[in-house]
């Protein structure tokens, strides 16, 4: 059995309604769970970029890329292993105001890319960003204080290898 691992898929698409459905349907058809997803503009005007994180075998990720690539409005799809990308996630923690001056919390914030971004009478909000593992750690540390809310973004990633998407578009045109 080939081993499963985490892959980050980057898909450059036209900016049309419904593409998300078309792409997610490809995962659905093959019974693959999407671990996280981010959609945004890309470096090219009118071209959107989808970032999916999935856990699967290399053999299967290649097939998925083929299927994604085949969609009419997909310009190009890439997949990368963890060491081929620089990636980031962000999380927000909402905590009751009573803990605001707790020194231990202040201590925890010191050592990480985390800071307080909002304070009100009743609560304060900590933003933390970094690798998945950084946020996991932060979650563990803050959980004892009782999280009023917790939310985490999908992964955003930049590849170390070149993705020659601009050249590709020129070639197509």
């Amino acid at each position, binding site marked *: 059995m080939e081993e499963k691992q985490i892959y980050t898929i980057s898909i450059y*698409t*036209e900016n049309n*309604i*419904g593409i998300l*459905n*078309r792409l997610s*349907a*490809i995962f*659905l*058809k093959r019974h693959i769970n999407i671990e996280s997803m981010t959609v945004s503009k890309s470096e090219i005007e009118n071209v959107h970029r989808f970032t999916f994180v999935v856990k699967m075998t290399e053999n299967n990720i*290649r*097939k998925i890329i*083929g*299927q994604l*690539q*085949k969609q*009419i*409005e*997909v*310009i190009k799809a890439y997949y990368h292993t963890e060491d081929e990308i620089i990636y980031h996630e962000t999380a927000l923690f909402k905590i009751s105001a009573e803990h605001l001056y707790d020194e231990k919390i202040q201590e925890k914030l010191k050592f990480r890319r985390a800071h307080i971004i909002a304070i009100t009478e009743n609560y304060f909000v900590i933003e933390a960003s970094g690798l998945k593992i950084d946020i996991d750690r932060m979650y563990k540390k803050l959980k004892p204080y009782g999280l009023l809310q917790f939310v985490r973004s999908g992964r955003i990633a930049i590849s170390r290898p070149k993705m020659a998407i601009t050249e590709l*578009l020129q070639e*197509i*045109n």
Partner: protein
Amino acid sequence: MTTQTKAVQKPKTVKSERISGAEAVIKCLLAEGVDLLYGYPGGAIMPVYDELFKYKDKLNHVLTRHEQGATHAAQGYARVTGKVGVAIATSGPGATNLVTGIADAQIDSTPIVCITGQVAKHLLGSDAFQETDIIGISMPVTKWNYQITQASEIPEIMAKAFYIARSGRPGPVLVDITKNAQFEMFDFKYKKCTSVRSYKPVPKMDMGKIKAAAEVINEAKKPMIVFGQGVILGKAEEEFKAFIEKTGIPSAWTILGLSALPTDHPLNVGMVGMHGNYGPNRLTNECDALIAIGMRFDDRVTGDLDTYAKQAKVIHFEIDPSEVDKNVKTDIAVLGDVKQTLAEILKLVNTNSHKSWLQEFKDHDVIEYEKVIKNDLHPKKEGLTMGEVIKEINNATKGNAVIVSDVGQHQMITCRYAKFNQSKSNITSGGLGTMGFALPASIGAKMGAPDREVVVIIGDGSYQMTIQELGTIFQTKVPVKIVVLNNDFLGMVRQWQQLFFDKRYASTEMTNPDFVTIAKGYHLDAQKVTKREDLADAVQKMIASKEGYFLEVAVEKEDNVFPMIPSGASVSDIRLS
């Protein structure tokens, strides 16, 4: 007077005319060379139907009896002509009824464009009458789909729809048009689509791969070809024939590849797959080079992948890069338009004949003939076999007919025994296995090839899934020859129940109506045959008829189709009984 002078002097602009969105749809169809479409009217598509009425001299709309029939008819038309078939329906149930045909066209790479009406833009998402999210529903089974909400989008999207449907690996496209867009007036201008920037229909040919493939082919002692519909879709029949005749390689086909090479060609060694021929299946695991051309290694072709052609170097000629290594690991993938890649490789391959290797196929044929074919075609028992009906149809049509088949035992028997002299003549639902495909598909096939004989062979189960299309046949007087092979069973399922479920015949026996009376109700000449001595004459009479004809043949109830590769077994383990 000055105004008049000004008007005369006005510079010429690009010609456009102010028309409604609905009329624009018709003009787009005409611009794409469409003169025939299949469909069913309803509320949300009525403006387009109103225009169809006005344009009926130029554009023939055939009213099917169910929207599913419209898609299959469009498929039948596309498959015999190589052109894009068109189906049209209203929103809601009209649109959802198209889905089976669209899914069928997707998996069998058939170019069709489906147009659906949709509720007005301001009602989208309000659960309006006959509103359904057909874009969402059809997304996984279309090559592309799009919802038009304003008339000005119509020309560009329709042009794109036809381009995408027919180019590269063909497939179905659905265009959903809100009712307001059909009514809206706008300045119409049409420009054919020749490219879409994010879509590369044909991958670049790589001469390095072609050279590598040619080397393997030239060195191979036991090469074997499996060809699929790609040869037909790529209009590469001549290049294919030249290639196999120069190299002398035995060539087997998938059911959708059938008719790309004449049945009686000396290098045609028959069908691969679950009910394919003994030789090509067994020898798949003995060849040293397996050359797959325009086929996709369906599980019904390969059986168990872990024991499929492991000894062979695999070369895959393919237009769709996502098919490479999808099911079978390829040693050399020759991407590109098969018409070009075959023409190129032809220059590099050596003239050869693999006589003793070809003889191995013939030796297997002898075994299969003794164990299976003889009993199918020249039965000694009393009951009629499906095979002998096909044999009589071959005798009557001399292999020149378009043969449309449905799904099940009769389909496998038809593909095994029907004779074909020319391409685009075998019309059947391969990938999806859609029961009910054949009767409506035969309407499209006959309208697409009016000068050819079209014989449609259907089982009693499949027939009743779309039997209402007899109404279409009656109304249009399209002279298709309908043969129902009636065993009063859902035969293929029954066969599996017999072989793998200890003969527990759960819901496979059918109490059937009097099919002849039904056909006569639609004013079709009709006949039922129950005895062998009446069969040949009945088939001759049917073929001689200038009009549509219905022939029911009562066949043996519990015959099985062999050879058979049990589901999940290796091609080497093909059973003869």
